[in-house]
């Protein structure tokens, strides 16, 4: 079994706003192994971005704050993992962009419009590695080549607005890859892109994962993307992990009613059902439901206990976890659920 590079344990990130405390990330645990692509899926507002920002130590503060849990990062060669949550901002800066880097959803707005591409790619490097200007310039071109940008020399001398969305996202990846990170966190890297461009970027990420062995935490809401590139998947709902497992299990044999519903409600290219399945109700904001299963209000199998108690994340089988009262420890169907559960 591979080593875990990054381990998130019971992470809690809350926002303290005028309208009260919002537990955007509410007791989340998962890990990434070396060279692995882990997908985090979930609908808008369920806390995916906040999770990734928490790992990076970039939660906007105020109003956000990590109120509990730890983020263990095991650097290559190190025995003892570091708890990133405990590090000072200064120590964090050494890790950010160097050992862990991140790319964002909006390629159109994620690059500083006033600086040249070349500068932006190597800004972090020059800081972390004390590179000379010349070296940095060469490295920038190298990285642009790596992410498959045509005319890398010219592009390094251009400004972001001169590039298309796909190119910019490649540049973002180049920036992220500049420090040879062990973990790359990609927060919805293709959501804003067209399908044809998305295919290019996914291809690129796959290649980097293969060739450089970089572990990737891929945040997305698109199960298609997950199927395409991820090895394992974490499904989030309203700030909580509801299901976790390898990609085949999650997509082919999901256990949690939410995951099931999600997959069934997708229109698919290959078969045209007359009617889509749909999960009723709305996606709740984290914090709007305080007790019971967060999904209870929309769940077709809901029964009394769901509303009263918080379900635990159960290990159904090796590496497949699910947070639902329908199941018991061993992946069987729990007794009390049978009464109300319909098929």
């Amino acid at each position, binding site marked *: 079994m591979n080593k875990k590079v990054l381990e998130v344990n019971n992470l809690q990130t809350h926002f303290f706003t005028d309208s009260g405390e919002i537990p955007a990330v509410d007791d989340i645990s998962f890990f990434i192994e070396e060279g692995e692509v882990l997908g985090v899926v979930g609908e808008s507002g369920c806390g995916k971005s906040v999770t990734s920002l928490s790992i*990076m130590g*970039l939660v*906007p503060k*105020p109003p956000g704050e990590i109120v509990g849990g730890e983020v263990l990062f095991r650097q290559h060669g190190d025995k003892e993992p570091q708890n990133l949550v405990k590090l000072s*901002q200064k120590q*964090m*800066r*050494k*890790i*950010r*962009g*160097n050992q862990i*880097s*991140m790319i*964002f959803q*909006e390629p159109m*707005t*994620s*690059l*500083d*419009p*006033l*600086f040249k591409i070349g500068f*932006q790619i190597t*800004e*972090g490097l020059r*800081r*972390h590695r004390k590179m000379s200007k010349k070296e940095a310039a060469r490295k920038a071109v190298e990285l642009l080549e790596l992410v498959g940008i045509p005319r890398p020399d010219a592009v390094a001398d251009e*400004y972001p*607005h001169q590039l298309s969305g796909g190119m910019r996202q490649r540049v*973002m990846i180049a*920036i*992220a890859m500049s420090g040879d990170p062990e973990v790359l966190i990609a927060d919805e890297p293709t959501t804003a892109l067209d399908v044809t461009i998305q295919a290019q970027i996914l291809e690129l990420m796959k290649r980097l994962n293969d060739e450089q062995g970089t572990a990737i935490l891929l945040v997305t809401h698109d199960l298609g993307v997950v199927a395409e590139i991820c090895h394992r998947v974490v499904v989030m709902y309203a700030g909580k992990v509801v299901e976790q497992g390898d990609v085949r299990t999650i997509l082919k044999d999901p256990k949690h009613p939410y995951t099931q519903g999600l997959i069934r409600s997708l229109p698919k290219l290959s078969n045209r059902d007359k009617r889509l399945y749909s999960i009723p109700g709305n996606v709740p904001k984290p914090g709007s439901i305080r007790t019971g299963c967060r999904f209870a209000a929309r769940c077709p199998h809901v029964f009394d206990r769901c509303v009263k108690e918080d379900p635990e994340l159960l290990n159904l089988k090796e590496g497949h976890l699910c947070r639902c009262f329908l199941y018991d420890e061993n992946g069987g169907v729990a007794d009390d659920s049978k009464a109300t559960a319909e098929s």
Partner: protein
Amino acid sequence: MLAYTIRRILMLIPVLIGMSLITFSIIHLIPGNPAQTILGEQATPQAIAQLEEQLGINEPYLVQYFDYIGGLLQGDLGQSLRTNADISNEIWPFLAATIELTIFAMVFAVIVGVNAGIISAWKQNSLFDYGAMLVALIGVSMPIFWLGLMQQWIFAQELGWLPAFGRGNPRDPVETTTHFYLLDTLLSGRMDQFWTSFRHLILPGVALGTIPMAIIARMTRSSMLEVLRSDYIRTVEAKGIPKLSVVYRHGFKNAVIPVLTIVGLQTGTLLGGAILTETIFSWPGVGRYVFDGIGNRDYPVIQSGILIIATMFVFINLIVDLLYSYIDPRIKY
């Protein structure tokens, strides 16, 4: 870029014509006969009639206007009715005094305002933020003439730290070439005079600069807050760049455009709005020159003064516009 500059300058022409027309109409709507004003209560009707004749103020307005514009095109601003002096010669020292004061005030306002704004945004909701923004709020609410009076009273009269009036020590007049005292004293190598002139600038400069400072601080803060929340700043943060560099290099550069706009607008306002400060601090500037001109019904003086101020204002904004494209590569005209 060049095309844009040319277009902008061409676009100024109707504005300038409109301005001159409005100024001209306004001043001729002002009641009161310049001849009577100049001669005062002890003048005889004959003397007034004679003076009117000589001043040429009995001509039809349009004739006067075209005379004026004709002269203007040849760089002739006309003559003051009161002093008979050529305005083009006479106005420069006033203008220089105002420009020097304005620049000083603006430099003060920009340095203090921008940094206060940046730090406030950086340390949002900190004690500094609250303090600075409260001060800024009071700053924009302060009647400038009252602030000036209070400063003069406290720092010049009660404490005696700084001179209360004028541009320099009257006993030791500055040898003027450019009429910018700081420059003139440097040119003549008189460091003592330079220091004196500088000290004279402090009170009026600070009084004049306080309101723009407050406005700039508020603007910088809100602009910075927006920028600091933006995606690309998060990217820079994710690269592990030190906060100072994030805030000043990336943050401020991106936040600077609205700040620059305000600086441009405020500079224009200061140029004309210095009347009050100039009166309080006996600063021989162009605001007072025009204000006195109004009092004296000195048409050419009012006309030229306002036109020059407005033209400068318009050009400052042009420069600001052009600066945008220098700072922001996305703006190409």
